[in-house]
């Protein structure tokens, strides 16, 4: 049975984690590679790196971070932030990313989705949608870009459908209203989008408790839940999150003892 995925997200600025776990037992908590290894050992199902500066000078540093992570961590890695062209995507995939997430660039140039999908396959292309509620009854959401600072006038549900039609393999849907609040995902937004598309949707923005993760999957219809702060500040661990979902009757992938015993690198 397909497991529900739990995906920690790391914000990376100039090669350093700026919002990450405060693990006491890792050598360098600011090193994205170290954090990725820790999450991998804990049983995270995938990882997302969000390059929050993503200037051109910074790009080579991110490629190096991705390369070193992909050499260490044998779970899927998605990288987003500042990718504007098929060449940008190719360089990130060549560095070792399994998927690339595009946001503002896809809104500015929707054909970028299909160019990416044609070049690398739909499965590589994640379209990230930052949505803000602009109407209550009936609810409606608008797409925002540039880190949620700029409105576009585009209806989020229509954009989700267009992204799918143009070849996105997955959607990463973030509620701008809930992001950082710990009030839970915007379940109405997730439900509206997951009913509208036939590609997997990752829920993002607002998870503050383990039950929020369950709600995103069960009530929002998401295939995966992205969480940053609830793991970074060690309020909850990935194994606790999985146990909570398992107790609620949802299939999850158990952490592997064999990874630790047989394959994990032990030199640091």
């Amino acid at each position, binding site marked *: *049975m*397909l*497991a*529900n*995925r739990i995906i920690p997200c790391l914000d990376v600025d100039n090669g350093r984690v700026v919002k990450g776990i405060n693990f006491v037992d890792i050598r360098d908590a600011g090193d994205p590679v170290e954090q990725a290894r820790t999450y*991998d050992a804990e049983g995270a*199902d995938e990882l997302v790196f969000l390059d929050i500066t993503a200037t051109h000078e910074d790009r080579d540093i991110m490629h190096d971070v991705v*390369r070193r992570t*992909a*050499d260490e961590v*044998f*779970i*899927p890695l998605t990288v987003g932030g500042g990718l504007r062209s098929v060449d940008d995507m190719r360089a990130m*995939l*060549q560095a*070792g990313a*399994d998927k690339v997430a595009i946001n503002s660039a896809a809104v500015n140039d929707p054909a970028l989705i299909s160019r990416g999908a044609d070049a*690398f*396959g*739909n*499965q*590589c292309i994640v379209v990230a949608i930052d949505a803000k509620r602009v109407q209550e009854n009936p609810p409606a959401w608008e797409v925002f870009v540039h880190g949620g600072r700029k409105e576009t006038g585009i209806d989020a549900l229509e954009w989700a459908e267009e992204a799918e039609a143009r070849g996105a*393999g*997955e959607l990463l849907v973030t509620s701008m209203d809930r992001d950082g609040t710990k009030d839970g995902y915007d379940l109405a937004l997730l439900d509206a989008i997951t009913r509208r598309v*036939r*590609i*997997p*949707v990752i829920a993002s923005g607002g998870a503050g408790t383990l039950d929020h993760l369950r709600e995103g999957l069960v009530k929002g219809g998401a*295939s*995966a839940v992205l969480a940053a702060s609830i793991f970074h500040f060690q309020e909850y661990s990935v194994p606790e999150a999985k146990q909570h979902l398992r107790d609620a009757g949802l299939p999850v*992938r*158990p952490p*592997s003892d*064999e*990874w630790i015993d*047989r*394959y994990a690198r032990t030199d640091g």
Partner: protein
Amino acid sequence: MITIIDYGIGNLRSIEKAFERIGAAVQRTDDAATIADAERLVLPGVGAFGACIDEIRSRNLESVILDRVDDGVPFLGVCVGMQLLFERGLEKGSHQGLGLLEGDVVHFHRADGEADDLKVPHMGWNTLQPTRPHPLLEGLDNESYVYFVHSYHARAANDDVLATTRYGHAFPAVVQRDHVYGVQFHPEKSQASGLRILENFARIPSPVPS
């Protein structure tokens, strides 16, 4: 020595690193002479079936691959590389595969009418249900999770299926006939379970000295 056939499709760094992690010697090549001498071969693949097989043929690698399989070396197809083992792929038209296994490759939605509400790609961790014990699956339990990402799957002869996975319906996740193997998932992204399968593959006897 594991030889990964590098025909210009996708990033092979992860699978190379996965073999290195289990202690295997590994090389990537698109050189026909190197493939002709390989001790064991891995055929990766991402994207569309037709694009992959076209790329193999345009590099004149099909006959050298088939000849080396005839020599009896262990051969592993991964993801689309597994799909290429079959006779025919029905993705964006109909494409002739390598024909090492009987069957074709079809879309999840078109494979049976009941699957139309499935989210496709089938993306994420799902369990393997082995159909019989086999050295390739040694050390895995009956519910081992591996990482899938694909919109098409094989329809294979029952005798060739080593493990199935259920997504809407059961489909072949691991196939084998003689020394030809295929895995629909990504072992290089399947953490311990995936590395175990690669390790098992690296141990399958080859008629060619390493």
